[in-house]
């Protein structure tokens, strides 16, 4: 379904995400600031390690940028996906397209994005989560931040929805070409194939493979220039047509449309039609890319879309072959500049500095001063690590050349607290007298007491059990409004159950078990409760009770 142009930031703001993960090649502070404005929840940005920025303001530990770097052998690769995975209270949203989080993408370039809202256990969401989990190994720092965030997205449900037609895919082990080969119908002659890409390959071998696999009556290349293409394209597709944008417009998006009489298969995302982007997997020294394949019923809407805004097609014979950088340059790469990241640890602040190879800084000073000199990070060329005292802000500067960066020290604990603040915790309470954790509750009651008015007097008392029962019931009411329970909620439940014992613990466990057994999304949580029940069976204090009968009653009796 193709709709009118959308404001990327407004779409995000309307969704009101409690957590957002963004993947980009390049990024700019202006865009980060805007994201922080429109996202009420946490913002994690994964970017290519050569294009980072130092965050002078992390919006009270709400925003964190994590560079992705490959090993030395893969150093020439780009981390190139452009994807946003967001979740709010009830659902997930994926935005996949061609736009980096850079100013140019939102100011100058024409970019395409596919936006879909879905259940948290939708296979598209699950595929994105799996891919992101694999990326944790490539992060320079903060893999635990990413994995923790993913746990909050991941929902294990007994009956996930099925939607076999929509595919989000990544090219870690198989190239975009290989994956399309597997996903698109075989032995079919397509009516037409449209390749929309600002950049083209120089290697004709790959193009021949493409032509052999995807046979079509008509090939059309949508390029930035109407009078030039690469020699390889001209050789392999002598019968193709070239179209370029009408008027003064240009484009940066990448889309591959395979048209049949009944269905239009639209693949769009970050991969340019180049050797690095389209024909190689990340493992085979290609870029890392993200793509989406959608089968759409054949419609005039797409025909109109492919006609409007484009000039009339030009035959390949009338086009010059030119392998200059303008056509084959994968992306414009700014000269990498240094940047740094600072994170508060228990008794110190860790500073990670990226200094590009071609960049030399003499007399780099750090405020507060480093404990020891910078140390190069293992297997990460250009990255250096240092430690300084506890501080809010680290200032790195050099006199020659004049260079200064202020880095707001990121606090993971504060970042995690934000999830609780935005209501993602099942059992956390700011007022501990409402807690269902017995130790927490006892302490809070001990400190504050609960007062009861009797006639004209106030009687302070500590009615632990009454308060505990009340808290548990209130909490179960709150849990009843939840639609999903994530992997992180599972670990939260586990910690609550582990901490309790005796009669209070047993009662709590049975009530939670009863609740989760009834909840449509609570199967995994109920199973966790059942597994915990073993510790009460072996408890001497319960030997005169028929615990199994009790369990049976709580699980099956809805009274």
């Amino acid at each position: 379904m193709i709709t009118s142009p959308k404001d990327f930031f407004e779409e995000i703001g309307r969704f009101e995400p409690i957590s957002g993960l963004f993947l980009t090649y390049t990024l700019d502070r202006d865009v980060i600031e805007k994201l922080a404005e429109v996202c009420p929840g946490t913002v994690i940005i994964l970017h290519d390690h050569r294009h980072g920025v130092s965050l002078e303001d992390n919006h009270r530990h709400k925003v964190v940028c994590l560079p992705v770097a490959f090993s030395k052998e893969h150093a020439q690769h780009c981390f190139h996906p452009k994807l946003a995975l967001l979740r709010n209270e009830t659902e997930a949203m994926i935005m996949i397209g061609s736009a980096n989080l850079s100013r140019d993408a939102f100011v100058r370039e024409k970019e395409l994005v596919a936006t879909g809202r879905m259940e948290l256990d939708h296979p598209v969401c699950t595929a994105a989560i799996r891919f992101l989990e694999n990326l944790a190994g490539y992060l320079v720092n903060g893999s635990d931040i990413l994995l923790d965030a993913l746990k909050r997205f991941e929902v294990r449900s007994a009956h996930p929805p099925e939607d076999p037609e929509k595919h989000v895919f990544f090219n870690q082990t198989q190239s975009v070409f290989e994956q399309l080969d597997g996903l698109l119908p075989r032995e079919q002659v397509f009516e037409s194939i449209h390749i929309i890409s600002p950049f083209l390959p120089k290697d004709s071998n790959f193009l021949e493979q493409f032509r052999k696999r995807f046979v079509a009556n008509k090939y059309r290349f949508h390029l930035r220039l109407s009078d030039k293409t690469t020699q390889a394209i001209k050789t392999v597709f002598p019968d193709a047509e070239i179209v370029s944008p009408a008027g003064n417009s240009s484009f940066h998006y990448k889309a591959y449309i395979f048209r049949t009489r009944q269905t239009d298969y639209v693949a769009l995302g970050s991969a340019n039609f180049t050797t690095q982007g389209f024909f190689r997997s990340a493992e085979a020294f290609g870029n890392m890319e993200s793509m989406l394949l959608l089968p759409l019923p054949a419609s005039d809407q797409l025909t109109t879309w492919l006609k409007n805004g484009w000039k009339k097609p030009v035959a390949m014979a009338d086009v010059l072959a030119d392998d200059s950088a303008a056509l084959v340059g994968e992306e414009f790469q700014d000269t990498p500049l240094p940047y740094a990241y600072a994170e508060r640890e228990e008794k110190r602040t860790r500073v990670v500095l990226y200094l590009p190879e071609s960049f030399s800084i003499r007399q780099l000073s750090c405020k507060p001063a480093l404990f020891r000199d910078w140390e190069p990070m293992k297997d990460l060329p250009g990255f250096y690590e240092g430690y300084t005292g506890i501080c809010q802000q680290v200032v790195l500067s050099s006199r020659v050349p004049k260079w200064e960066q202020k880095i707001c020290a990121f606090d993971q604990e504060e970042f995690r607290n934000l999830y609780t603040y935005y209501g993602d915790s099942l059992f956390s309470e700011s007022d501990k007298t409402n807690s269902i954790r017995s130790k927490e509750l006892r302490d809070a009651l001990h400190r504050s007491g609960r007062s009861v008015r009797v006639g004209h007097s106030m009687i302070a008392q500590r009615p632990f059990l009454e308060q505990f029962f009340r808290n548990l019931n209130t909490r179960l009411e709150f849990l009843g409004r939840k639609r999903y329970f994530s992997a992180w909620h599972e670990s939260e439940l586990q910690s609550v159950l582990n901490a309790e014992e005796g009669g209070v613990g047993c009662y709590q466990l049975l009530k939670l078990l009863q609740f989760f057994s009834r909840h449509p999304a609570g199967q995994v949580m109920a199973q966790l409760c059942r597994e915990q029940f073993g510790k009460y069976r072996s408890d001497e204090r319960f030997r005169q009770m028929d615990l199994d009968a009790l369990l049976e009653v709580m699980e099956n009796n809805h009274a």
Partner: protein
Amino acid sequence: MDFKISLIKPVEFETSKLDPFGFDEYAEKAGGEFMPFATVARKPAYYFFIDYTNWLLEEKLVEVKKPVEYRLRMEKLLVRSWMYGMDRDALRARSIIGVSTRRINPFKGNDGNWVVNTCFRLYGNSVTQIMQYVPEFSLQKQEREIGLLREFLSMEGPLDKRNEAKLNKLLDQLKQLKSRCFRSGGELILSDRRLFLSALKSSIRDKNSDSETGKVFLSLIRPYFEKGRHLNRERLQAAVLGNQQLPFYWANQYMAALVRAVDSDLDGKPSRAKWDAFERSRKELKARFPMEERKLSGKITHPSCWIVYDSATGRYRKGADFDENKWNGHVNNAGNSEGRYHAFRTGTLAQLIIESGL
């Protein structure tokens, strides 16, 4: 579940004026290395207002579902309060954001009638930097004002007669309270002007006291702080932009030389001499401020709009999107008699000193 495919609507960032080599963006950042404020907020009253608005939000003194909506509405209320009781045109050319003949509806955030992106810049970090130097902001204790603002935020809807009457009543009440932010004309009271001037001075001093170039900059602008309202904007700019110990002079030479050389290419005239001049200014900048040269050279052979670099001929030519008028604007800047292609942030600095001067 359906995916909707759409083009992304262009977004205007405050500094996103089209220019092929990204000079505007560079100059904004380079100016920011010495002057810690946003060029978008040229009236000191904005700094107090942003601090106040953020404080209300952080202390949860106002109930806000969407911070962006809240900030936009407060910004509109501020401008309405500045315009209240004045001629529609009285505030024009007075460095106030959003003054227009269109009706400003503060009951709605983004109604398509307001430059939303300015708001993002206005509430950005560089605006709050100076306020860190203002001691205990007593404005924050005005409980009656907070009550009125709460009432205002609870009202929503179009700017019809009923709402306009409510708004005028609110503005009257704010006026009676002698509000420090929401006052006609947006002028600061004397004590706040004093506070701001001192904060501006301290923030610039702290930013520049560690480096040699910073010290040069400080010594240049120090006398202008004494001049206050009588400051001559042109003199301040000439002193800073003309000083050869600062990167501004050399960066301006570099940018102007490049624009002149490219312009000759575009006109098909012989451009050799101009390219040689550019090469000289590039070498000068590189020798004195290598970091600045590095930042500037990034986009030279990859202009972002209007013009195209032809690597085969080594000349620039007009692109399909060439915008004659806007390009001529750059050529004029490059050719002006002071050799000043960009003002960096000196214009805003002068304006802030004048506005807060005693």
